[in-house]
Structures are given as C-alpha cells and as structure tokens.
C-alpha cells in the first residue's frame, strides 16, 4: 500500500515537472502581452501600422513597425536564397556522393559551426566580411542587409544540412534500386527520385533554418547598420525586429510608450517564428508518418 502511494507521488512529480514547459509558454504570452497591452489604449494600436520607426523624437514619436518587419524579411529572404543551394547540395552530397571518410569529416565540422556563438560570427563579420562587401560592391559602407544575410546563411546551413540529410537518407533503398533497374543513371536517380521523395523533409529543414535566421539578434545588430528604413535593396542598411529590441531596450524608461512598443515588436516576432515552426513541424510529421 505504501509503495503504491510512493509510485503515485513519483508520477506526480514527473507530471508537474513536465507541466512547467506549458507554464513557461503561457507565461511568455502573458508577460509579453501584459507589458504591451497599455499601448493599445494610449497611443493606440493604429500607431504600429505607421511607415516610420522613430521612437525618440523632439516633435512626435512614431512607432510604425513596417521598416522593422521589412528589414527582418529582407535579411531572412536573402539569407534563405544564399543558404538553400549550399545546404541542399551539402546534404545531397554528404548522404549520396561522399565517401565514408568525407562523411566522418563533415559531420563534426558542421556540428562545430553550429556551436560557434553568434556573437563570434557577428564579430568575424564585422572585422573581416564587412570590408570585403564594401570593396567588392563599391559601397560607401559594408554594413548592409547583404552582409547580415551572408552570415545568417552560414548559421542556417547546419540546420538545413542536418535535417535534409536525415530526410534524404531515410528515402527507402527500394526507390533507388527501382530507378536504377529502369536504366536511370545515378544522377537521374538522385534528382528525379531521391530528392523529390525527400522534398517535404528538405522544405521543413529550410523553414526551420529560416526560423533560426529571423530570430537571430547579435549578427544582424552588429553588421546590418541598423537604419530603420523601408527598402528592398540588399546594399542598404536595415534594422531588424530583433536588433531593434536588443539595441533599444537597454535605454528606454520602463513603462514608456517606446518600452511598450518594443514588446509589440517582440509579439510580432514571436507570432512569425511560431507560425514558421508550426508549419515546418506539420510538414515533417506528415512526412514521417508516410515513411
């Protein structure tokens, strides 16, 4: 009887430990919402839809999120375009073409890259990459959206390679054998059978990589120049949502409109990454169920 009580108590301990994850998620939404909410009354939510982010001004502050959102999207878009060929080629190469020796060499390297702190990558970018971008494109300053995107692409590549490689090596061998038996060359099999069969896994990998990129703070804060303008040009300086929060939060008076607006930036960011994450996991799950 006593041991039964004990078993129940132990189960309760584990259950409550597990519940903290749910609690934390709830608290994140609660506290972000709580700090952001008063902004909806004064100065009003419509402020957020303005075209300008000018939180400190002698005349009238404006808290339009548009330049920050377009900044984040531009950097993320560029980084994805750069990262996908490297990530997918890398994954296909490692799982289908590479020799055993190469494979043993690549995996730790990729893990190594994933382990380099983002502030170190940002620092490297600031010192080494920024002048290169400036010279190659003949710009006035190397602190551009492109510089940030190049570094972020590098950070997304490990995620894309690892997850796509999983998807590719999970393609049943029988598919490849059937393709070979029909007279297809190795290359035809890879591009027309293996990659399409793993496509949803690859897409999910890319989306997870994008999630990492859009939420990354230090790199973009250090190398994109942080000008809050709406632009589509990779050679302009941009200011992302993440960099805005990190750079401005330290200096705002608690409880000011600016402070609350920064929490709104956080909420928008959270919703965007949440959607990306959710969709990519749905895709991955569907794909795994099919296997």
């Amino acid at each position, binding site marked *: 009887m006593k041991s039964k009580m004990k078993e129940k108590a132990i189960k309760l301990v584990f259950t409550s430990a597990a519940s903290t994850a749910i609690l934390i998620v709830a608290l994140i939404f609660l506290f972000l919402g709580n700090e952001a909410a008063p902004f909806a009354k004064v100065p009003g939510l419509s402020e957020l839809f303005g075209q300008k982010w000018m939180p400190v001004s002698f005349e009238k502050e404006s808290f339009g999120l548009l330049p920050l959102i377009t900044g984040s999207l531009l950097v993320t878009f560029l980084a994805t375009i750069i990262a996908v060929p490297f990530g997918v080629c890398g994954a296909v190469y490692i799982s289908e073409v590479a020799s055993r020796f190469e494979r043993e060499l690549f995996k730790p390297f990729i893990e190594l890259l994933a382990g380099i702190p983002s502030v170190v990558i940002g620092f490297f970018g600031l010192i080494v990459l920024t002048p290169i971008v400036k010279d190659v494109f003949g710009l006035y300053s190397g602190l551009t959206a492109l510089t940030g995107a190049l570094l972020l692409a590098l950070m997304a590549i490990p995620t894309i390679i690892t997850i796509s490689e999983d998807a590719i090596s999970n393609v049943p061998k029988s598919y490849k054998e059937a393709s070979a038996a029909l007279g297809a060359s190795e290359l035809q099999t890879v591009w027309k059978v293996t990659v399409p069969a793993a496509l949803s896994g690859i897409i999910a990998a890319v989306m997870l990589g994008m999630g990492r990129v859009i939420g990354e703070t230090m790199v973009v804060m250090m190398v994109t120049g942080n000008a809050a303008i709406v632009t589509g040009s990779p050679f302009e300086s941009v200011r992302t949502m993440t960099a805005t929060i990190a750079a401005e*939060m330290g200096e705002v008076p608690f409880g000011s409109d600016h402070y609350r607006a920064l*929490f709104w930036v956080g909420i928008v960011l959270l919703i965007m990454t949440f959607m990306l994450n959710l969709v990519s996991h749905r895709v991955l799950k569907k794909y795994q169920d099919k296997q």
Partner: protein
Amino acid sequence: MRSRSAQTMIYWLMRAFTYFVLIVIAYIIFDIIRNGMPVLSWEFLTESPRKSGAEGGILPAIVGTLLLVLGTMAAALPLGMASAIYLSEYAKRGRFTEMLRLAILTLAGVPSIVFGLFGLGLFVLFLNFGASIIAGSLTLACMVLPTIIVSSEEALQGVPQSLREGSLALGATKWETIRKNVLPYAIPGMMTGSILGIGRAAGETAPILLTVAAFYLPGLPDSIFDQVMALPYHLYVLATQHPSADLVRPMQYGTALVLMILVMTVNLAAVLIRSRMRKKYRW
C-alpha cells in the same frame, strides 16, 4: 557517355559547394585563433579589465559566464530530464501530452531575444530579482529546456523495451524499473544532449543583454542577485560600443577566442561522453 560527364560535373559542383562551406568554417576558426592567441596570457585570464576594457584581463567576464552556465544547469537539467522521463515513461496519448508537445515545440522556436523580453518582464521586474545572475540563469534555462527535453527523451527511447518488461515481470514497480533498469543506460545520452544545449546557452548574448549583463564591472559578484559581466556581451561591447574599437581589437579577439574555447570544451565533453557510450552499450 555524355550523361556520364554531366554527372561527374554536377558531382564536382556539389562537392565544391560543400567544401566551400567547410573552408569558410575553418577560416573563421583559424582567424579567431590566429589573432586571439597572442593576447592570451595569464594576466589576460586572471585580471580585471582596466580603462573600460582597453587594458587588463577578462576575469570577471569568464567568472560571470561560468556562473551563468552553472545556474542554467542547476535550473534546467533536473526540470528537463524529469519532463523527458514523464514523456518517455509515463505519458499516454491524450490532450495533455499533445499540449505538452506543442508547448515544447513552441519553446524551441521562440527567438532568444524574446526570451530576453520575457525574462525582463517576469524575473527582473515582476519577481523583482533585478538584473542579476539568477534572472539571467532562469531566462537561459527556459531557453535550453526544450533542447534538454527532446534529447533526453530520445536517449530514454533508445533503451530497449525488453529491459523494462523484464524488470516489471520480476515484480519491480514502475519507478524501480525506471531507476534501476532504464536511467543507468539512458543517463549518458541524456547528459550529452543536455550539455550541448547548455553549451549553446553559454554563447548566447541576446537573453542576457536584458536580464543580467553589466557593461563594465571590474569586481566579482557577491551573491546571485548581483549583476555580472559575461564573455559574449563583453565581446559585443568591445566590438561595437567601445569609443576606440579599433585600438582594442586584440582584446576583442582574445575575448572571442576564450569564449569559443569555453563553448567548444563544453561541446567536446558532450561528444566524448557520447562516443564512449556508443562503444559500451550496443543493443
């Protein structure tokens, strides 16, 4: 014949893409080591910074980062491992488990700066810890929790079902089974994933920016309610905020190298545990 050469060409193209990434990674590491090495000295590692970081060492930042790592481990390891045990051993299909999985998935996707905002709202302001080691550690712990849960659960799932069944068949209770027949085999794997997650936390800057990091604090902390310096933040400040950033370049490289060595050591430890375990247990 033509398709043969096309194949060779495309394979070479893919090889080039892959090797290009490797070369870039190697170059980054090489660049940091080459420029950081000359700065590393006993003085650099054991003295406090002087002249706002332009001279002296980085001891307070090293100590700060180590304290944050310890605090994060103390909070996140037991919680994460216990959650994983629940998910792997106790959870049944149902609403609660589904909610739990969704929560873990959501947490894993939350950007680090949003964790910073959350930590600021909850730990620094609401619970009134102020910018402090405890606020920073708890924020980082929330951030690494999903990594720890997912990797620990994977390790638990790797223990063959027959070990559990054998123990239950001999009349052991569920907890006895878990404690004596599952955990001993799963713990190394659980540790590996968890340590990898915590290594990442050690290098994070965004969450501690808002919850703990001090710009310049040459002394060492007295209690967990003190602010500390931290390596990633120190590097960020030296590289972008310092009035003479070009002149303190060697200090920046030195800090970057120490940070990288610290994170890599943590990661290496995790990888070593893993490879050792792989040799020991084979099902």
